[in-house]
């Protein structure tokens, strides 16, 4: 692909000072790129830094070091009008639809808040815009005058999506947008994401821990462990031929809704739990749970490199 990626993340680091002189390396040396119009899934278990990565990319957090290039410009150096413009281009959908909508604003005002801030429309046009958006996400015109508490979880998530779409962004970061929803409703919201992408040419960074759902929606997937990317490739390749032992065990841990398969398949059960990110293991962060750990793994952090075409991983096995 000769085209310039819409988003490029280079050596991104986000560290938090957590008192007593300790540093939490929530995001440590992230490198990946997202092409225009694709969906990039970021998966990992809780505490792996995937949400921090999303929030640092959209600059809700300032990066400790490294670059986030959006359309070629470093997001973390934007100021004034340019920053304002960038905010219009990138929007976020949050995990908890119960906490991310202001309970004292009507749905119409929630959706149009960005429109007002950016002075895009006013009066009748603004109203029309809100109604268009409500319809686009499968809600009704009269919902504009209601308050968030009158809606179910799935409907609230639709409102959150409408708000993100309101200022016509190119890029949407969805941070666990469906994990608070019931299964039958998850499918509704995922289909909505797909439909909107097709209609509006959106690019998504889709952050989630549900690997089956991420595989369903994403073109490419990055797997994170303890603040680091351990593998990046297309969703087909990730499932067909996972390279990193962590990805292999993650895939193997997910139960498949088919009793016959479940009865026969051999699974890799990882020993132990994720080490504390405050005190990560030396060398490769996964080595303490890795079934293939060698002596070199404790000493040297494996390089994140392209092992096969478009298939990147950080493991000494390759």
């Amino acid at each position, binding site marked *: 692909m000769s085209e310039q990626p819409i988003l490029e993340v280079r050596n991104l680091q986000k560290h938090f000072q957590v008192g007593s002189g300790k540093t939490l390396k929530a995001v440590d040396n992230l490198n990946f790129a997202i092409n225009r119009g694709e969906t990039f899934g970021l998966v990992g278990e809780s505490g792996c830094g995937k949400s921090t990565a999303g929030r640092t990319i959209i600059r809700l957090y300032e990066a400790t070091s490294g670059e986030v290039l959006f359309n070629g410009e470093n997001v973390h150096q934007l100021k004034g009008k340019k920053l304002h413009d960038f905010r219009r281009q990138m929007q976020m959908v949050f995990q908890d639809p119960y906490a991310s909508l202001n309970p004292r604003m009507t749905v119409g005002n929630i959706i149009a808040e960005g429109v007002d801030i950016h002075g895009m429309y006013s009066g009748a046009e603004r109203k029309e815009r809100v109604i268009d958006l409500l319809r686009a996400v499968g809600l009704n015109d009269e919902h504009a005058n209601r308050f968030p508490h009158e809606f179910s979880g799935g409907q609230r998530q639709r409102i959150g999506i409408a708000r993100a779409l309101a200022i016509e962004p190119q890029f949407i970061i969805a941070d666990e947008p469906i994990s608070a929803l019931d299964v039958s409703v998850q499918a509704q919201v995922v289909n909505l994401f797909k439909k909107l992408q097709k209609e509006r040419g959106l690019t998504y960074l889709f952050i989630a821990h549900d690997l089956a759902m991420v595989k369903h929606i994403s073109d490419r997937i990055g797997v994170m462990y303890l603040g680091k990317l351990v593998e990046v490739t297309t969703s087909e390749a990730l499932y067909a031929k996972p390279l990193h032992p962590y990805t292999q065990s993650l895939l193997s841990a997910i*139960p498949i*809704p088919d*009793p016959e398969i479940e009865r026969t398949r051999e699974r890799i*059960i990882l020993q132990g739990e994720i080490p504390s990110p405050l005190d990560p293991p030396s060398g490769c962060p996964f080595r303490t749970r890795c079934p293939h750990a060698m002596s070199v793994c404790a000493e040297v952090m494996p390089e994140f490199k392209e092992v096969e075409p478009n298939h990147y991983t950080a493991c000494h096995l390759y």
Partner: protein
Amino acid sequence: MSKNILEVKDLKVSFNTYAGEVQAVRGVSFHLEKGEVLAIVGESGCGKSVTAQTIMRLIPSPPSVIKGGSVMFDGKVDITKTSKKEMEKIRGSEMGMIFQDPMTSLNPTMTIGKQITEGLIKHQGLSRNAAHERAVEMLRLVGLSNPEGRVNQYPHEFSGGMRQRVMIAIALACSPKLLIADEPTTALDVTIQAQIIELMKDLSEKTEASIIVITHDLGVVAEMAQRVIVMYAGKVVEQGTVDELFYDPKHPYTWGLLRSVPRLDQDTDSELVPIPGTPPDLFSPPKGCAFAARCPYAMGVCLEIDPDQTPLTDTHSAACWLLHPDAPPVERPVEVGRVAQ
């Protein structure tokens, strides 16, 4: 006399609220055989947790009222009619429960050891020392390293997966005949979930406890259970063995559930088919079938009369008018049922 550890017949549970009566469970019947793992699935609000908590009489009354039905435990006691005192004897010693949230269901002011020994001293009359030894043994059984040291620690010193192991140790300490696990792995990461499921399967074989596992994850069902109950709006809509439910489901709601989850082992191109709409309001449940409003196959009769369970095999039954001999034949969606291997 009976091989069933639990027989629930036409159980009805309501909650009295300011807004009126919520009919959370509206006539649920099922049984659990000894040594069996039974899964109850359904969306939030379908009454699966209320059913389970009623079996243990854990829901305070008021606001809850058992409106009818019976729950026979071990062929001798009707749980719905036992006194508080009797229930205290059964709960903990003959029934154990694992809750969804390991972060909030342990007492933060008591050591782990104390929380395990509480039941042992009360129900089995063990001495403090004997109970302590048993607690250490239980922690070892659930796979905690250094149980001798761990037993004196507080819940905040444990991670989520470890706490769930402690919960399991508490629930199994008195070797109960029945273990109810309410969303035991929902709050856990997948690699930890795999460990906990493995542990529960292993322990159920070792202790011969019968298990009811409540979940919304069909993958967990396929992995753990022998039989499944599908609940919707306070009723059982379909029940059967896992094979019957996954390969030959009969109720449109079960089809909907199976079609709305993506499968890791399938193509990404296949579109997810969501169930349109939302479950009905249980303040005033619909007159006919509760699923009719969301059902693509709904007929006139569905809106008027609630269907009874139609037996299909010895183990399989479903409540749907499509199974009536006069109903028009309906093709089950192709992607549901046995997948070509």
